[in-house]
């Protein structure tokens, strides 16, 4: 008998969610909530906004679970695709709000770490990495987060971003090249 994979289990949860079983939604959140939250936080630059996006992801899952087709995508890829679209929507809205003067440009990348954490040794390096990530072009940042933080393979990143595998590989090469000096410095000092 073939071994039951995480994907098999998640697909069963999706079927249960489609039947209205909330416990299955809670299980899905327990498995994927953290990865989605970390990805959205780093992409959007703010914890509160990221948490709203992740809640929206699971609300959409609840409403659309019956449309999920395991033959077309893994559950994780489907979830990240929803998250990517919501993050992009948020950024567009934020840009519009800034354009019409409803949001201060300085609020775009709020400081995620309060003062005490900054004093911890090694924190400065991570701050530099976060700042460098924030300066990456959006699609490079998204591809890198989906790969490094969410742990998706290149094909799944491409699917989540609605892009080709080749394009994602290029995005990853460029993003990693930009961050290499920081990784080298980190290696020297650690």
């Amino acid at each position: 008998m073939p071994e039951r994979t995480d994907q098999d289990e998640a697909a069963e949860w999706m079927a249960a969610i489609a039947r209205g079983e909330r416990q299955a939604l809670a299980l899905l959140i327990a498995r994927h909530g953290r990865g989605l939250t970390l990805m959205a936080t780093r992409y959007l630059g703010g914890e509160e906004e990221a948490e709203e996006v992740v809640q929206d992801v699971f609300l959409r899952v609840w409403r659309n679970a019956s449309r999920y087709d395991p033959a077309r995508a893994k559950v994780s890829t489907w979830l990240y695709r929803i998250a990517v679209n919501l993050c992009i929507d948020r950024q567009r809205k934020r840009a519009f709000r800034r354009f019409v003067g409803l949001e201060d440009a300085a609020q775009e990348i709020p400081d995620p770490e309060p003062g005490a954490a900054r004093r911890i040794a090694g924190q400065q390096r991570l701050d530099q990495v976060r700042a460098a990530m924030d300066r990456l072009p959006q699609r490079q940042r998204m591809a890198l987060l989906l790969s490094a933080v969410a742990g998706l393979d290149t094909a799944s990143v491409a699917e989540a971003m609605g892009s080709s595998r080749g394009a994602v590989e290029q995005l990853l090469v460029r993003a990693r090249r930009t961050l290499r000096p920081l990784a080298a410095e980190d290696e020297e000092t650690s």
Partner: protein
Amino acid sequence: MTHDPSDIDQAVDALVKRASARETDEAGLSQAVLTRLAAEERRLPALPAFGPGVAAASFAMLVLMAGAGGYALPDLLLEGPEEQALALAFGQGQVLDDPVSRFLLGRGG
């Protein structure tokens, strides 16, 4: 010292992962999602009067009126589900307690 490019890529990914790490609260997230679900279910099924077409038209009018009247535009720049919920509620006569809604529903202002 030379490095294999794939080693360097892995070092970059590890650094990105470290820089992105923070505490998360899956139980709190789950609770927040279930609370929002319950709130939506309390609000939406009890709305029998009009169809979504009426709601969408009313919502478009609401946006226009709010813009023209200087009402709180930020409140209207909501995420999709909230917009839909507001449109549905408005189209079915539930959003009553503000001048724009009262005007659009023909109840004076």
